[in-house]
């Protein structure tokens, strides 16, 4: 189980490979990668976070997922700082004996990271910078777990 919060880019292909190789006994590996979408003239994104709490919150979420779905392993990588459109923001990976558990755990991790890990996104456009508002749908997504 690993949590990495960092400013530097990551190589999600290499991460997925290493994660799969290390997940001995798994029959199913699911990965999710979030990418900065070049929507509506977006020129960049700045991600602020709360050092210390970020790692603590993500570790707690990941431990919950590992236990609930009997995961063989779990991984969360999340960037902060300045990102360009098209760049990967974050990824999660889950490994389980069966596919339903690997999928459910990855979706759970994403839903919780969205609303319970202390990150804040600020989008840059030609017109200036705006903080991304949390969506009610993201908060509602937690209710299914």
């Amino acid at each position, binding site marked *: 189980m690993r949590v990495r919060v960092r400013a530097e880019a990551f190589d999600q292909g290499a991460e997925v490979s290493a994660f799969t190789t290390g997940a001995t006994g798994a029959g199913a590996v699911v990965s999710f990668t979030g990418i900065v979408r070049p929507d509506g003239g977006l020129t960049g994104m700045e991600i602020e976070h709360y050092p210390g709490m970020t790692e603590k919150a993500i570790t707690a979420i990941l431990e919950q997922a590992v236990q609930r779905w009997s995961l063989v392993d779990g991984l969360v990588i999340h960037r902060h700082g300045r990102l360009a459109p098209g760049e990967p923001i974050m990824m999660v990976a889950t490994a389980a004996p069966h596919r339903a558990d690997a999928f459910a755990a990855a979706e759970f991790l994403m839903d919780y990271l969205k609303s319970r890990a*202390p990150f804040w996104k600020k989008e840059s456009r030609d017109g200036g910078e705006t*903080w991304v*508002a949390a969506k009610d749908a993201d908060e509602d997504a937690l209710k299914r777990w």
Partner: protein
Amino acid sequence: MIDVLYFAWVRERIGLPRERVETGATTVAGLVEELRAREERYAAAFADTSALRVALDQDLADFDAPLAGVREVAFFPPMTGG
């Protein structure tokens, strides 16, 4: 004395990322009242606490939570990770 941290637009509105605060408040809500009374920029940042979240020693908490024994309080908007 307590460390008070601000993130995202709360940080921008107040104009600093953290400060040491001498407080007699016993709950988060009491601390918010004290901060609001300080200056317009604090009043603006804390105008609507339903738009804010609070963490005590790096765990999410409610605004009616007690401050006893707490060393670090953080105020921020709803999180937008992932």
